[in-house]
């Protein structure tokens, strides 16, 4: 049976399959989020001289499930003064845009819901959609902290969207495509992290800001705006925001892995591939291994994200914006320029590495100097004070 639509014709079976696949993706991502919640609590606990959850299940593995049950069973409070429609729509928008990104992110050569030629464009487009949800959430909850947080998120996410897109463009130029599978395939020899380290650093930092993780967790800063856009949300609504946040973090980590760490290609890929097909009994082993390897890389990046959260304080909004426009945006443009030069003149790969490291070094040095200026001043004054003290002691001894 064929259903004819104006633009395409699909069979009912295909539609059904699509629905099933979508549901599978939702389930899979939810499981991933549960694992991330557990991992974050454990990793943070270890960083902070704590144990993290230990009571629910072995090693506290059931803790995220208990949390989820608690959140869903909690009373869902909607403030009287809120704009009900917007209040309801905001979490939906946020979570939909988070899930939509994953439609086109491949986990291995074959494991992708819908591979798009312009996959990266689609991803960046939907990443911006989430901002709308946050601003609406802040506005709709009719809370001043919410409004502040929502506007902060708008300013922050839009500023950091630019370096993200620019670096994505640079990676796309290297591969000659915006198709993620092609980008991964073109890294089977050497990952872009080695060719364009600048790109990876900029993408990772801007990505952190994009998903609002420490040190860029300004729009939901606990100690200032008390949760920002989420301040009036409770129970299931709040958990939906939470879900979206973790999915977005996972997406950024996955993109770092796909764009710069070679996705699911493994070291000694060619060697392994040479003997893998000779094991006809396990035709699924190759794909399985690539999924495992991909997840390994993503979780490694995620652990770095958690590590940063366990280490840094948060920036102020003006410092955050200054960092975006004075460091991130120029660096991302620079990465495009050097990539273009490298491609046009067909220089060897290490020249690009060198140029990108040089850019990173210069900007890193400037940022470092600016940030450590007070520290140097204190060191100077301490030295002066110590000298004065020594002088005084010497003179008192002489006297």
């Amino acid at each position, binding site marked *: 049976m064929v259903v004819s639509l104006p633009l395409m014709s699909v069979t009912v079976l295909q539609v059904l399959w699509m629905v099933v696949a979508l549901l599978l993706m939702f389930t899979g991502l939810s499981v991933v989020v549960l694992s991330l919640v557990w991992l974050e609590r454990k990793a943070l606990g270890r960083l902070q001289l704590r144990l993290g959850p230990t009571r629910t299940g072995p090693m506290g593995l059931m803790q995220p499930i208990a949390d989820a049950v608690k959140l869903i069973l909690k009373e869902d409070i909607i403030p009287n003064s809120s704009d009900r429609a917007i209040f309801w729509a905001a979490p939906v928008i946020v979570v939909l845009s988070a899930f939509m990104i994953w439609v086109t992110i491949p986990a291995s050569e074959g494991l992708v819901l819908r591979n798009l030629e312009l996959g990266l464009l689609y991803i960046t487009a939907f990443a911006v959609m989430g901002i709308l949800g946050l601003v609406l959430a802040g506005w709709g909850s009719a809370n*001043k902290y919410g409004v502040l947080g929502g506007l902060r998120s708008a300013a922050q996410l839009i500023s950091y969207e630019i370096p993200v897109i620019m670096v994505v463009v640079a990676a796309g130029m290297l591969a000659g495509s915006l198709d993620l599978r092609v980008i991964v395939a073109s890294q089977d020899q050497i990952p872009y992290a080695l060719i364009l380290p600048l790109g990876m650093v900029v993408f990772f930092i801007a990505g952190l800001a994009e998903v609002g993780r420490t040190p860029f967790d300004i729009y939901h800063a606990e100690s200032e705006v008390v949760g920002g856009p989420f301040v009036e949300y409770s129970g299931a609504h709040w958990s939906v925001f939470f879900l979206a946040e973790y999915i977005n973090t996972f997406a950024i980590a996955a993109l770092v892995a796909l764009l710069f760490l070679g996705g699911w290609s493994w070291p000694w890929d060619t060697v392994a591939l040479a003997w893998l097909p000779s094991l006809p009994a396990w035709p699924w082993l190759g794909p399985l291994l690539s999924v495992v390897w991909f997840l390994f890389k993503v979780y490694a990046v995620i652990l770095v994200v958690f590590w940063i959260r366990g280490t840094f*304080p948060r920036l*102020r*909004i003006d410092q955050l914006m200054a960092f975006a426009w004075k460091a991130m945006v120029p660096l991302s443009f620079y990465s495009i320029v050097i990539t273009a030069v490298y491609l046009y003149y067909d220089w060897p790969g290490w020249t690009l590495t060198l140029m990108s490291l040089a850019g990173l070094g210069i900007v890193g040095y400037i940022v470092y100097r600016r940030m450590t200026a007070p520290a140097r001043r204190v060191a100077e004054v301490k030295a002066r004070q110590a000298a004065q003290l020594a002088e005084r002691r010497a003179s008192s001894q002489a006297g």
Partner: protein
Amino acid sequence: MLLNMGPQHPSTHGVFRMVLWVDGEKIVDVEPHIGYLHRGSEKLCEGEQYHQVITLFDRLDYVANFNNELVYCQAVEKLMGLDVPERAEYIRVILCELNRIASHLLYVGTIGLDAGAMTPTMFAFRGRERIQALFEAVSGARMMHNYFRIGGVKEDLPGNFEQMMGELLPLLREDVEESDRILTFNEIFLSRLKDVGTISAEDAVDFGFTGPCLRGCGIEYDVRRAQPYSIYDRFDFDIPVGLDGDCWDRHWVRVQEMYESLKIVDQALEQMPAGEVVSSLGRRLIRPPAGEVYVRAENPRGEIGVHLISNGTDRPYRLKIRPPSFCNLSAIKHLLRNSWIADSVVILGSLDIVLGEVDR
């Protein structure tokens, strides 16, 4: 926009309330509201016998209980002309300095939280817990010790005190160093605190700043040195001072003070003699002669003053407390104007107020 911050806000350090007039992210004006924790301590003191007042002083600055007890006991002792046994003085100094470290560690943890870092809190609290475990062994309570007595302390230290201190001090030094390393020179932390909440030395004096907040402005004033009380003139310690009077200088001064306190504790442990811990006069019902006295001491938050008037009965006639946090907090309007919303919590955190003392 009118933004109400507190009394239920995670970073107003208790039940303090600020009404902020903000223009976008900038603070135009601020109206602080205090009094949510007012218990009428000064009036309550008038109804209690002299020994019973000690418990009320425990509840003023509830993270530096020993220091509060000390200043009250000293006031009554001065009024009575009571001599405190040597050993009791040393016990008091050791406990007060440890309490100063505990209080500053708590400050390091909370300023970390205010600036958005979770981990320093945990690091700092580890050290604080160790100190409190020692306090519990000594006095029977982690906080609200009620251990100092007029004319000494309640009872002698536990037998294994020296051993406990031997175990505690190296760990404590490590804790202090760790919470210093993770935060003080962190680039983001510096950019959040440096040149934020700056106050000039003249303004600081005018507002009645004392303690680390005043020393952060570069004024070398410490009651322990300026008007040595108890036995503080016997120890060798430095008074760290800041330069610019901004939040980071106040932070830096506090961190350095922890090292200085460790130095004092080391020296006191070495010099501590054996002997009585409370003078026999202090065991009886206290009835100071009529008269008045003002005594000051250096609390972790600054100079605490007690103005005690006695009419010869067994209860104080009037007891006025000069809390350091209250005077430091009085500059909040001056400090917050034209700063960012995010700065407000950092500035408040760097003043390191305790509402139990502000509201009394």
